[in-house]
């Protein structure tokens, strides 16, 4: 970092730890206040002093704001509400990553590291699941424990899918790619990150009170009657949803108003478009998941009857509300994955992105239709039969805009002189994996086949192809692609490619065979299966272990390269987009002067294409785009 601000915190007192400690104290005080008041009211009205779920919910209602205020909201923000001046700390280097820092690049790294760690943790849970499934009668996990591990694996991976690419790379690179100095609401941005630690604590802490065994979907009536860990899950989802909504709000405002001069909507990098699309979905539909959790919570702690059939409630209401969010949520995962895939494919094919407008239109089309397909998850739930045909058709229709995005990728690769590097390998694998995910999805969209395949391992294999195959592979494409920009160091290309091939082959060897036990009726979410399927399950588990082990190579490569890797150039990929026009890592506030946009981001090999951007340096005239003309 080049700036020379003065460190005002006392030295040697570990100042960076303070915000977190303050946050924990704030959370403890808030919890004591909320839970204590609840107990007092309960005693006053002649009840027992302590009701775990009621006291916990009302305690957490104050603990969460207490945590946020302590960790930095009060210092940098709350003081303003009373008309006082905010106190902003001046911290350097690593310490900023543990504070309520408003720099979008710091927040991006905070998200990224947090969610990669959570990804590896939830991956370890998947290893436990596969260990159990080595045999139909395996004593590794008790049945109840198996369901809890499966639930924990599911929801943490969903959280990773929602927030790793958008929260991590979206935060770091959207402002850079649109030529802005930061996001529209920097403090709100920091708030969205600091809502994540309570989510992780709740999900893991739930295990102390019995966990929850209703999967990540938390269907009632089970979720109204199971162990108290469910209530922790509910609070975690409401908190995580708030983070997701606010970060969507921030991205939409940022891209609307902070694009650099000349950056028309048609010149936005396609990754930025994909984040816009994901943000629209996050901003709106996420409320439905929060509403569903609110209803389950009220049923549990306050005797409401949303889902209690014996009191006139309707359990299927939950599924409608839940899937009205959770189907569109699939596009919060997939669209940024598509965005980064198109981005990398264009840069490494050294050709203009094929049918840019159609690809962007396809993504917007997906957003438009995403709210009309939810009930394809409910063909066997007992909902009204007249809805079946409708949702079959709408689900098939959404494959049309998805196909546009897919064709844009294929058209860009077509006849290209492809430059094979690790990010490109991952990006190409997204196209391959998503093709399998898409084709197998047809059988789940069509009612006659879905009735037989519902709740089997066919579904498990299918959604792992769409979520892991598309988004998680795109996440790793991203990590390798932007590692030199974020760290200023270059990763080891050979190890990167070894990681890719092991991960790609092991992934396909795990999940292609998984369609088979699904077709033979092996149930998902159950710790056992019929003995005739043991052979294939042993094979699947072995491949899953190799898949898991491949990440050890990744971890080694990242850690070693971060410490000992060669210094990276500002533009190692000779890409045209704006983030490569600044140093690696980029300076605070990104640009010496706001860039002025002239050309298109993907005009590789186009004769006489104007430079994408011109950035004035300290009063001097323009700098030519080094990637001009490309190839």
């Amino acid at each position, binding site marked *: 970092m080049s700036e020379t601000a003065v460190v005002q915190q006392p030295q040697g007192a570990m100042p960076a730890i303070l915000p977190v400690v303050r946050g924990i104290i704030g959370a403890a005080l808030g919890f004591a206040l909320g839970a204590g008041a609840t107990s007092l009211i309960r005693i006053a009205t002649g009840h027992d002093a302590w009701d775990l779920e009621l006291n916990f919910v009302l305690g957490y209602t104050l603990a969460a704001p207490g945590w946020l205020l302590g960790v930095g909201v009060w210092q940098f923000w709350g003081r303003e509400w009373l008309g006082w001046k905010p106190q902003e700390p001046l911290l350097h280097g690593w310490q900023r990553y543990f504070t309520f820092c408003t720099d979008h690049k710091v927040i991006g790294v905070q998200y990224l590291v947090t969610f990669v760690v959570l990804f590896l943790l939830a991956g370890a849970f998947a290893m436990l699941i596969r260990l159990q499934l080595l045999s139909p009668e395996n004593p590794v996990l008790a049945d109840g424990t198996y369901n809890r591990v499966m639930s924990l694996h599911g929801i943490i991976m969903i959280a990773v899918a929602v927030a790793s690419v958008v929260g991590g790379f979206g935060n770091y690179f959207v402002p850079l790619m649109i030529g802005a100095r930061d996001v529209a609401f920097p403090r709100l941005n920091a708030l969205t990150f600091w809502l994540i630690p309570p989510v992780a604590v709740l999900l893991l802490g739930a295990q102390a009170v019995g966990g929850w065994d209703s999967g990540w979907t938390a269907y009632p009536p089970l979720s109204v009657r199971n162990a108290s860990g469910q209530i922790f899950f509910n609070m975690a989802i409401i908190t995580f949803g708030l983070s997701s909504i606010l970060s*969507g709000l921030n991205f*939409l405002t940022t891209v609307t108003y902070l694009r650099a001069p000349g950056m028309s909507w048609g010149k936005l990098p396609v990754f930025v478009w994909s984040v816009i699309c994901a943000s629209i979905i996050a901003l709106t539909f996420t*409320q439905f998941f929060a509403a569903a959790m609110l*209803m389950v919570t009220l049923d549990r702690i306050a*005797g409401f009857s949303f889902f209690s059939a014996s009191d006139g409630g309707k359990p299927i209401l939950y599924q409608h509300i839940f899937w009205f969010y959770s189907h569109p949520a699939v596009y919060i995962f997939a669209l940024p994955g598509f965005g980064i895939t198109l981005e990398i494919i264009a840069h490494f094919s050294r050709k203009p992105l094929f049918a840019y407008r159609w690809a962007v239109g396809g993504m917007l089309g997906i957003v438009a239709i995403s709210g009309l397909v939810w009930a394809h998850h409910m063909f066997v739930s007992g909902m009204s039969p007249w809805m079946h045909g409708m949702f079959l058709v709408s689900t098939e229709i959404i494959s049309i805009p998805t196909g546009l995005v897919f064709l844009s990728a294929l058209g860009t690769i077509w006849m290209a002189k492809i430059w094979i590097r690790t990010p490109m390998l991952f990006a190409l694998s997204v196209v391959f994996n998503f093709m399998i995910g898409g084709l197998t999805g047809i059988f789940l969209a069509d009612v006659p086949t879905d009735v037989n395949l519902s709740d089997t391992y066919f579904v498990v294999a299918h959604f792992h192809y769409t979520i892991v195959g598309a988004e998680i592979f795109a996440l790793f494409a991203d990590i390798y692609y932007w590692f030199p920009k974020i760290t200023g160091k270059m990763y080891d290309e050979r190890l990167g490619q070894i990681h890719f091939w092991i991960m790609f082959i092991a992934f396909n060897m795990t999940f292609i065979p998984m369609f088979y036990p699904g077709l033979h009726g092996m149930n998902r979410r159950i710790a056992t299966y019929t003995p005739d399927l043991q052979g294939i399950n042993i094979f699947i588990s072995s491949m899953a272990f190799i898949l898991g082990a491949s990440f050890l190579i990744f971890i080694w490569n990242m850690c070693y390269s971060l410490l000992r890797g060669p210094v990276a150039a500002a533009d190692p990929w000779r890409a045209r987009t704006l983030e490569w026009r600044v140093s690696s890592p980029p300076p605070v506030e990104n640009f010496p002067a706001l860039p002025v946009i002239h050309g298109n981001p993907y005009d590789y090999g186009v004769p006489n294409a104007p430079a994408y951007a011109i950035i004035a340096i300290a009063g001097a005239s323009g700098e030519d785009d080094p990637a001009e003309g490309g190839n």
Partner: protein
Amino acid sequence: MAVVASREQALAVAAVPRVVPSHNGGGGHHDEPQRPAMNQLGLWLFFVSESFLFASLLVARFYLAGTSRGHVDQMLGLGITAVLLVSSLTAYLSEVSIAQGNRGAFLFYLLLTIVLGVAFAGGVAFEWSTAEFSRSEPYGTAFFTMTGLHASHVISGVAMLGLVYYLGLRGHFSAKDHWGVEAVVKYWHFVDVVWVFFYPALYLIGA
């Protein structure tokens, strides 16, 4: 609920005029010509998002209970609805007054809005205490959830109006710079509009 408590912090983003924070470790304060427009868009997007939350409950009410309705006090319902609609008018007058630099009228109408808001919440509390249906039947489940969630928004709105009143007393806000007032008043109108949908769904439709 946790949702509501944290939502208010979210709203405060928009509600309070802010300087651009310098980043940790350096960087200056920039002129931000887009700031007013960004604050507006951020606030409106927040309303769009909240609309989905309220819409989910509106749908749930009809899904659970059809058009059947428990016995509610029609005069009370009409009364609190009138109170809330009038409070939107006083909130509007308060905003107009500060925009014209009239601090006295601004504070007067603001106080009136707060009083009306408290009266509305009191009316809901009274309806709760006298309701002849229970929360464990479909209509009751919908009624208590919808009025409860709406009232929690009213109460948090009153808290923010109170904060603006306190700041106004201390000389904050002016004809040129009153985004904090505008944001909270817009929020108040939004909560009012939500009630315009909830009131017929809970009090008028069905029998």
